[in-house]
């Protein structure tokens, strides 16, 4: 039996309308709170484990560092915006990097004074909003054209728009002598939040080396690393965006989106002018993709065609959505987390399994020739070191073939509803079963 994917929440919301607002809120959001708490404590767990005696160096090799986690939440937001349109209305937006890129470039261009009528002193939070609105505008234009078609033709049209922008930005001499390499903005941004800016808590890595003075207010002498502060600041915005997207998905509008995905012909026949609903959903999705781009560029203090408008940026979102589960929203973030952790585990240049093996296996064994001139060292270098992307491709194939519902989608199917609602009860039953 396939469980009904949508609609049960509507019935439930009707059932316990009488409960107090707060208790109802917490009942539905226990799992959300647990996930947020896990992200909140991660920097501390990471710093504790990676500096622990004896085992510390091992943890350091395998756990994603805080900087990686910043990109997990940022690209996670981008992947959620991709899932919002692709997973909920069924229209694959292969050109989603366009909106991400617009958000990214807008912020850096504004900060370097390249945007007319906009002071380069404009607070960062406002720049994010403007960038996202620009992305929304682009979404409306692209959508007006692309939604005249469906299926693969829609996907190709959006991809076409993104590639146009990609080619344009690579040769736009207005950006400087080497537009191909992108643009950077050296100094930090001020957030534009009263009192916070006064404390020099700009956005994390962007200003200053530590936040000693801020935490000094609370009697803490510990220095908080820049990327940790960025992680929290960016994470907070991502959480806000997630709840906004979730709100929309559970709204009457979101129900129409799902109806379009399920059966667009019937959605038209029951009275929806689906064109405008699709365009609305696409613009909203572009807005949040723009925010993600603006956050990434702000954190990097720069943007380049390769890390914004490129097709591979969309591919990251697609990968995250497929691993996490299409049409699950939060799944996309977990999907990207999985992607990054796998990347780190399977070793990048300085990280992961290859370095670990090279560390624990004595040099004599590593250097010993197995067959001919083939040594273990050569095998490790050839198959593991820096090869994460290769295995990621295999994982992608595995998910498409074996776990088509993705991580969160599969969990939802197992527990018969969204994790936020059903996981606590499911766990309780499971624990009760274990006790017997």
């Amino acid at each position: 039996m396939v469980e009904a994917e949508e609609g049960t929440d509507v019935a439930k919301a009707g059932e316990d309308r009488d409960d107090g607002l707060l208790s109802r809120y917490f009942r539905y959001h226990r799992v959300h709170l647990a996930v947020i708490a896990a992200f909140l404590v991660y920097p501390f767990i990471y710093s504790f484990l990676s500096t622990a005696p004896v085992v510390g160096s091992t943890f350091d090799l395998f756990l994603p560092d805080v900087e990686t986690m910043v990109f997990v939440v940022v690209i996670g937001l981008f992947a959620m915006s991709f899932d919002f349109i692709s997973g909920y209305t069924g229209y694959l937006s292969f050109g989603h990097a366009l909106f991400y890129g617009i958000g990214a470039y807008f912020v850096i261009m504004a900060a370097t004074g390249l945007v007319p009528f906009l002071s380069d002193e404009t607070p960062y939070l406002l720049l994010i909003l403007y960038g996202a609105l620009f992305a929304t505008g682009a979404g409306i234009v692209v959508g007006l054209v692309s939604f005249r078609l469906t299926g693969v033709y829609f996907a190709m049209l959006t991809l076409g728009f993104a590639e146009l922008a990609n080619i344009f930005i690579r040769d736009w001499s207005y950006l400087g002598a080497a537009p191909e390499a992108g643009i950077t903005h050296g100094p930090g941004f001020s957030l534009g939040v009263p009192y916070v800016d006064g404390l020099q808590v700009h956005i994390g890595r962007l200003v200053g080396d530590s936040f000693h003075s801020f935490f000094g207010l609370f009697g803490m002498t510990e220095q908080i690393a820049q990327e940790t502060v960025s992680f929290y600041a960016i994470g907070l915005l991502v959480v806000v965006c997630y709840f906004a997207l979730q709100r929309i998905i559970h709204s009457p509008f979101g129900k129409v989106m799902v109806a379009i995905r399920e059966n667009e012909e019937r959605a038209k026949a029951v009275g929806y002018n689906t064109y405008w609903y699709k365009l609305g959903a696409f613009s909203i999705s572009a807005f949040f993709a723009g925010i993600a781009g603006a956050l990434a560029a702000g954190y990097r203090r720069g943007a380049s065609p390769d890390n914004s408008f490129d097709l591979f940026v969309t591919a990251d979102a697609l990968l995250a959505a497929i691993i996490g589960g299409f049409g699950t929203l939060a799944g996309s973030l977990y999907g990207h987390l999985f992607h990054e952790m796998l990347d780190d585990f399977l070793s990048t240049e300085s990280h992961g399994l290859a370095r670990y093996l090279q560390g624990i296996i004595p040099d004599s064994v590593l250097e010993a020739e197995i067959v001919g001139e083939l040594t273990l060292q050569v095998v490790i270098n050839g198959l593991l070191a820096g090869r994460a992307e290769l295995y990621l491709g295999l994982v992608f194939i595995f998910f498409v073939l074996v776990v088509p519902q993705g991580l969160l989608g599969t969990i939802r199917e197992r527990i018969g509803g969204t994790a936020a609602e059903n996981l606590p009860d499911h766990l309780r039953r499971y624990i009760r079963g274990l006790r017997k």
Partner: protein
Amino acid sequence: MLQTKGLTKQFGGLTAVDSVDFRLEADELCSLIGPNGAGKTTFFNLLTGSLTPTDGTIEMRRDGDWVDITDESPYETTLGGIHRSYQITNIFPMLTVLENVRVAAQAHGGGDSWKLHRNAGSFEEYLEEAHEILDRVGLEQYADDAAENLSHGQKRNLEIAIALAGDPDILLLDEPTAGVSSDGIGQIIDLIENVAADHAVLLVEHNMDVVMGLSDRIAVLHQGSLIADDEPAAIRDSDAVQRAYLGGYESDEETGDKDGADTSQSTDGGTTAA
């Protein structure tokens, strides 16, 4: 309630619907019959705006006035009060049975569907309407099941339930008994009778027991033309209708009217009303 004048639809060189003058009165149950390929589904698609006519007009009575709806698109005809069910089950498979009907009811709520900030479950009117309709078609006990898990007969009922949402003036039912077992047919007949009490119904149906038992009036399409339009008894006795259709109608599912005005008649058994 609804009338067409000289309604014509051509696909290339083929005339699927040929200058049909048809009128449906309020509170009437009219059946549209004819052999496969006679143009019945094409006629439905023209009425609902899924197809644009080559020639002719469609008018509907709204708030006492006749309105030309020839150029309306499907969502406009629906919001204007013409709802349809489909010959081949056309539901939202992964949604719950309740949500299938609720989302259809919500379509009639004007700007409600654009309220991004509110929970869909807080619009009680659509939930209540959906529950009432499910009760009426006998699917209330399956409200929380995924629609795709329903049996074929139940899906046919859900088809009608979705069409009922938003309280239409005119219901177009395209072969509601298609593929339903003989036990299930009785139940669908009851349901059609029930909804015909407070809606104008235009019914396409191959099962002559259903057609003869329920209809106030029967219209016969043959090769795209309306060859008869009369009371059931008169239709039964009409020679022209006998020749064109009733001599040995098919009980197979129609595969679509675009294929051509196919007049070949199978010798498939079934209940022959002749």
